[in-house]
């Protein structure tokens, strides 16, 4: 309730004007009361209280405003500091002159009051009073004598004649009243100029006491409204001594003129003395009134300062609020109009600005939405691309990469955004060739305008988690430039499989043609050689016959050898017709090992098989048997030792989330030549004197038919090791391609 009233008083100019007018009226009344106006003098205390209440109300209002302002400053409300500054300036501007005026007014006031009093006037008035007293004293002494004479006359008078004598004496003496009082205070006789006066003015106890002490009393008494009277009381001897003395009181009027003059002197003296006595209280009273006026003016000014500052700052505060709202992104903020002054113009400008900003933001949102849509479209397209796409900024930092890029490079690129290509290479060294390729093309063609000059294309080979990969990379500079350097978009395809397929197809074609071209003449050659033996050998002499036999036998044997070689080629070139059934590789290995242990008793063939090995889900047991046969045979043939040694090891492993079976067959032979090791799986590549050179080529072919991979390496302790890695889920691997990781020290050779 109180807060609401305060708020109401703080709102609008109306309450201020009313309060100021009331305060002014009240102060005027106080001023009049102070100046002695009888009418307002009666209201003086009430007016003082009213003004004090107004003072307290104003002080309360100011305190409330001050507390509110301080709270606003503490909360860092907009415009609070400006309000403080303005209030301070207003208060200083109003307080300083008012205080100066107050000081000088007080000075003038005190001096003015002091100037009312003059020693000479005071002395004159005292003298006048003394003069009056002296004049009256003379007359009073005469009247005392006169009364004493009357008293002596009455002392001898008979009791029954007292009344007449008193009346007679009164008339003669000119007294207004003459009263004879008995020893007990009873009135013995009285005479008054006014016969209607029944009760006489009797002397009081104090007068009678003095009478007893000094024998007479004389005094000037103001009696009611009748003016001054001279009261004379004298002792009157008793007519009979035993009765005690009596008292005679006479009241003599002072003449009208003297009465008037004495009254004037008395009134002037009394007034002057009262004024002199009231000098200090009067000063205090004037000071209090002036202080009240000052305080009320000051507090009203301070309040008005608060009010004005708030009114002035309000539009600016709204403006600041609006600015904050705009800074926070709310462009719908509109400020209320603030008149046609400068602030109003500012508010209009602000509203126009927020309108424009709002429209600009809508445009921006539309553009952003379009951009997002285009980006989503581009992302969709990129994610569906089988080619890897990388975009790099001018500092070679990765900006975007599609899913295919991650798959091809085997690197999680989603978390690598913002990394430079060099940093990426540090984490994944197998990307170094790509980095080198990209960086070599980075500075090139940034100034070129022709598309041909901005594009580049190159083939790069990397050895990543998936083994050796041949990537066909192409890049182009991005159109936007920064500091003269342009970013790049790099597109690459994994062409490893394609190249392998092309190479295999070429070899198959070679083998097929070789088989076709060679195998056909071999049979007639063999038949001819056998016919020669049959027809001519018996006709020859013993010496020739032996020679002839040896020659034809050689022809037949070689033709047989050639036939088997051609058959091998034919097998290599033949398109596989694989069976797909679950195969236990360990069991197959045990069979092969047993077979070879029986036929090669001198050899030491060991098999370390992983009991946890899972079955291959879909494999051709015959082809795998051939693979094992080729490997074991190859290992035995590679050793020119009395006791050749072959070690077969299987183990289950998981790589990039997929399960594999790894088969290693190692020997103790001389190992592969350094130059040859990369090509051992190609046809016709062999270090042995005999053999077709197709053994390991067929191994690789069978492994690839099972979506597997092969690798060859030399062991540190001597000997060679062929590793075959087959995925447990062959069908899945086939869909996803060859993703077989070779060991760290494995040199994988593909086609």
């Amino acid at each position: 309730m109180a807060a609401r009233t305060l708020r109401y008083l703080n709102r609008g100019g109306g309450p201020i004007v009313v309060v100021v007018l009331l305060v002014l009226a009240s102060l005027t009344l106080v001023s009049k009361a102070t100046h002695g106006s009888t009418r307002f003098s009666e209201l003086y205390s009430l007016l003082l209280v009213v003004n004090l209440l107004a003072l307290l109300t104003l002080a309360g209002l100011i305190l409330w405003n001050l507390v509110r302002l301080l709270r606003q400053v503490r909360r860092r409300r907009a415009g609070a500091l400006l309000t403080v500054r303005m209030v301070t300036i207003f208060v200083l501007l109003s307080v300083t002159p008012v205080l100066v005026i107050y000081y000088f007014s007080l000075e003038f006031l005190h001096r003015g009051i002091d100037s009312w009093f003059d020693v000479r006037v005071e002395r004159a008035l005292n003298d006048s009073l003394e003069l009056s007293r002296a004049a009256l004293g003379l007359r009073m002494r005469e009247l005392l004598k006169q009364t004493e004479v009357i008293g002596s006359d009455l002392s001898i008078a008979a009791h029954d004649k007292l009344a007449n004598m008193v009346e007679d004496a009164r008339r003669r003496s000119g007294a207004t009243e003459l009263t004879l009082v008995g020893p007990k205070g009873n009135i013995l006789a009285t005479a008054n100029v006014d016969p209607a006066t029944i009760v006489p003015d009797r002397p009081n106890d104090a007068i009678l006491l003095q009478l007893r002490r000094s024998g007479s009393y004389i005094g000037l008494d103001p009696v009611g409204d009748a003016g001054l009277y001279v009261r004379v009381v004298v002792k009157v001897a008793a007519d009979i001594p035993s009765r005690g003395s009596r008292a005679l009181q006479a009241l003599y009027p002072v003449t009208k003129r003297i009465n008037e003059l004495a009254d004037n002197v008395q009134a002037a003296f009394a007034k002057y003395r009262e004024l002199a006595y009231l000098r200090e209280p009067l000063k205090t009273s004037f000071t209090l009134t002036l202080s009240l006026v000052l305080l009320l003016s000051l507090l009203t000014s301070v309040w008005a300062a608060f009010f004005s500052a708030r009114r002035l700052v309000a539009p600016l505060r709204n403006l600041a609020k609006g600015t904050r709202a705009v800074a926070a992104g709310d462009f719908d903020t509109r400020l209320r109009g603030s008149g046609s002054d400068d602030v109003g113009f500012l508010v209009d400008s602000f509203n126009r600005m927020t309108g424009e900003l709002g429209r600009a933001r809508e445009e921006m949102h539309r553009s952003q939405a379009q951009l997002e849509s285009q980006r989503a479209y581009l992302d969709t397209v990129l994610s569906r691309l089988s080619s890897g796409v990388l975009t790099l900024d001018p500092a070679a930092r990765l900006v975007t990469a599609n899913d295919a890029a991650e798959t091809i490079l085997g690197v999680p690129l989603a978390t690598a955004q913002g990394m430079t290509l060099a940093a990426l290479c540090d984490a994944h060294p197998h990307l170094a060739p790509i980095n080198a390729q990209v960086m070599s093309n980075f500075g090139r063609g940034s100034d070129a305008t022709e598309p041909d000059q901005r594009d580049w294309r190159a083939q790069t080979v990397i050895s990543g988690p998936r083994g050796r990969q041949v990537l066909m990379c192409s890049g182009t500079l991005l159109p936007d430039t920064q500091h003269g350097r342009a970013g790049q978009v790099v597109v690459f395809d994994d062409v490893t499989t394609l190249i392998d397929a092309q190479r295999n197809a070429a070899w198959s074609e070679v083998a097929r043609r070789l088989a076709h071209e060679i195998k056909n003449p071999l049979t007639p050659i063999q038949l001819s050689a056998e016919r020669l033996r049959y027809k001519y050998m018996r006709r020859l002499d013993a010496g020739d016959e032996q020679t002839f036999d040896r020659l034809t036998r050689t022809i037949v044997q070689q033709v047989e050898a050639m036939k088997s070689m051609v058959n091998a080629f034919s097998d290599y070139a033949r398109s596989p017709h694989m069976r797909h059934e679950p195969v236990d590789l360990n069991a197959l290995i045990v069979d092969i090992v047993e077979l070879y242990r029986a036929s090669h008793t001198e050899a030491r063939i060991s098999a370390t098989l992983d009991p946890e090995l899972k079955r291959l889900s879909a494999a051709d047991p015959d082809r795998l048997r051939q693979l094992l046969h080729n490997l074991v045979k190859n290992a035995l043939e590679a050793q020119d030792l009395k006791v050749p040694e072959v070690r077969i090891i299987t183990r289950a492993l998981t790589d990039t989330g997929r399960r594999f079976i790894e088969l290693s067959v190692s020997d103790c032979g001389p190992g592969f030549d350094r130059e040859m090791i990369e090509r051992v799986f190609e046809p016709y590549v062999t270090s042995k004197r005999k053999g077709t050179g197709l053994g390991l080529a067929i191994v690789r072919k069978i492994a690839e038919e099972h979506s597997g991979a092969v690798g060859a390496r030399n062991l540190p302790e001597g000997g060679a090791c062929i590793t075959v890695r087959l995925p447990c889920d062959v069908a899945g691997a086939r869909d996803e391609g060859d993703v077989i990781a070779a060991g760290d020290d494995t040199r994988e050779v593909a086609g």
Partner: protein
Amino acid sequence: LALAVIVAIATAAVQARAADVDRFQVTHARTRLVDGVYLLDARIDFHFSEESRAALDNGVPLTVLIDIDVIRVRDHLWDKEVTRMQARYRIRTHPLSGRYLLANLNSGQQRAYRDYAEMRAALGRISDFPMIDQALVKSDARYRVRLRPRLDIEALPSPLRPLAYLRSLWRSPNKWSEWPLER
């Protein structure tokens, strides 16, 4: 400035408190039923403070009020005021005669006294003051009479009033003296 005024007022108030104050005490009071009218006789000790004496001796008239109430005592309700009277006296000095003048403002009567003590004694003596007619007093009810003498601050010249009010604020308020109405 406001602080200075407050300090000045507080100082004045403290001074007023410390100084001698007007003390008016009813020393004796009784009522009598005379000819169907209850009359009041009372003795009041008027002790004027030095400030008041100084004002009086310097020509400032002082007005003394004596509030006289007759109230009916009720058991279950608050007491009822049957009648309220006020005796008003003004005292002042008469420089020319050197007398103290005591005027009964109710009757208009004025007496002059040679000295202050005489005047004070006369002021404190209330005799045969008619209070209430017997007809207005119920026989089965209980009545009490109360009396309160006080200085009329509003009758003082305006410059003296603020300080007089402050002084009256600090001292205990004028108390009523009560006694039962004697039948």
